[in-house]
């Protein structure tokens, strides 16, 4: 009950942050705008409708990821330090609230806020794709545009479940990132934490490169050890973006549901680990 009370309050507080609202509105706006953007592409390119759909999906997923990363960073960076700055933490921890309940409640609140943000962006994304699919099918059926779009437009399904899995995967990476930033917020200042969080995401996003550097033959053994350690320690954010075919054109996932389940398990374990370490630090932190 205490964790839930803190989580609810955190959501109410977080959703009022102007900067989060701006990121959310801009991301939703760009996803919607991508509809007209891809409309232009459809008729100008020679690639066909299915290729345009791939572009549209990649753009939408990319927008969601970018906005969500910033929201996760800002939320995670300010989640606990702001309680100190505003001195709200004193009256809360003076009540019979265990420290792990406070941290868990705050983190759960952040996850709920990210869930709302991802839900809004995801819904906009999926609706945009469905509208585009309807438009493409109607155009394919029309006698004047049918020959321009070709047979590929007719093959496009109105609703693709893989989009839902892709949105869930995007959310899972926000969860992992915010748990890391929350942990860092107990150690570093807000500015340092923001850049550290961004760096962790960037390195995790390029983990394939880091892994290959760890196995590079020309590098010294110390350097290879360093790259290997980094690749083991940091979460593999690239794996959450597999459905984005623009980023991973070579990778094909046959069963997206199973893949998402596996990544959810990976993300949850990583998040749990970061949360446990954060709780252990906070247990001895003076407020």
């Amino acid at each position, binding site marked *: *009950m*205490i964790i*839930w*009370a803190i989580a609810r*309050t955190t959501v*109410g*507080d977080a959703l*009022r942050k102007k900067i989060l609202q701006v990121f959310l509105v801009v991301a939703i706006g760009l996803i919607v705008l991508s509809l007209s953007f891809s409309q232009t592409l459809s008729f100008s390119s020679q690639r066909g409708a299915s290729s345009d759909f791939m572009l549209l999906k990649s753009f939408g997923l990319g927008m969601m990821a970018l906005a969500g990363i910033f929201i996760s960073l800002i939320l995670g960076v300010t989640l606990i330090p702001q309680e100190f700055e*505003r*001195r*709200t933490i*004193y*009256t*809360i*921890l*003076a*009540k*019979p*609230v*265990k420290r792990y309940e406070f941290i868990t409640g705050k983190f759960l609140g952040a996850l709920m806020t990210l869930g709302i943000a991802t839900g809004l962006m995801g819904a906009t994304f999926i609706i945009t794709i469905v509208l585009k699919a309807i438009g493409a099918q109607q155009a394919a059926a029309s006698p004047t545009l049918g020959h321009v779009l070709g047979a590929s437009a007719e093959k496009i399904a109105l609703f693709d479940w893989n989009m839902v899995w892709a949105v869930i995967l995007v959310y899972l990476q926000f969860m992992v990132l915010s748990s890391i930033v929350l942990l860092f917020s107990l150690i570093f200042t807000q500015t340092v934490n923001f850049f550290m969080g961004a760096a962790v995401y960037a390195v995790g996003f390029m983990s394939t490169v880091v892994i290959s550097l760890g196995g590079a033959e020309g590098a010294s053994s110390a350097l290879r050890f360093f790259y290997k350690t980094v690749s083991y320690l940091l979460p593999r954010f690239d794996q959450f973006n597999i459905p984005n075919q623009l980023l991973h054109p070579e990778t094909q996932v046959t069963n997206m549901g199973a893949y998402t389940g596996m990544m959810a398990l990976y993300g949850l374990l990583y998040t749990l680990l970061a949360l446990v370490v954060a709780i252990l630090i906070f247990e*001895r932190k*003076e*407020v």
Partner: protein
Amino acid sequence: MAEAIVVEDLCKEYRGRTGDRVMAVNKVSFSVHEGEIFGFIGPNGAGKTTTIKTLLGLLFPTSGKAMVMGKPAGDIEAKERISYLPESPYFYEHMTGAEVLDFYCRLFKMGGAARRKKVPELLDRVGLGKDGSRALRQYSKGMLQRVGIAQSLINDPDLLFFDEPTSGLDPIAHKDIQDLILSLRKQGKTVFLSSHQLSDVENVCNRVAIINRGELVKMGTMDELLHAGRTVITLAHLSADLLGKVQPLAEHVAEDGELTKIYTETEENVHKILDMTRGSANLVSVVPQRQTLEDLFVEIVREGRH
């Protein structure tokens, strides 16, 4: 008599970023009896808030013992029976007064029905019955302090920590808080009151501890701490010769232009000084005076600076 708070040789040391160490609280020992109003006073930076935060388990002692309601400071069971009103309390501004209290009620695991009954009761008690549905960002400082008081009364605590409860309040709000502390005393509650309003402390507290530079300087009841029979004799045109003769009988002498104020404690010395100066100086006034807590406080703090 049972003790609500026991502090023994409490030390709290802070380490600065450059590695320098500051002893915020140094071997402080005191106890607070159940049912008493205990004043804890000292200048800014004396270690008052550090001591309170340590007792609440927000800070950890470097060494020594801090027990609250028979449990180590910070114990969850003890926190069920205590409350804390910080100086200038801050809350989530997007919430209304009622929502904030509902939130704090939830932290005591109160059910929905109990919360629906408790929140309006508390709002009425602190005079915010009509403002409960307004967002806190629209509240004045005094109103926020009232919300702070309301949240400190949620669990009907046995021990209340009040840190500067009247700081920056208008006279009405100030009086309300003073009345609240007195009513808590009547109910047999224990109050640990840290305040710069020394007249409040003098009026409501059973015992007072004075802390300066992290060390407990004095502690006791008002009668034990304050001089009872001090008399101030004010004379005009007192010669230097005569002043030299009077001085050994005085506790303290202050000169202000032509006027000389002679502070003396015993009635016998008052008569001796009056006899010695009769006809040689003009007697302006003889005023029996009780030392105030403020006098004592200023004296102690000034001594500490030398």
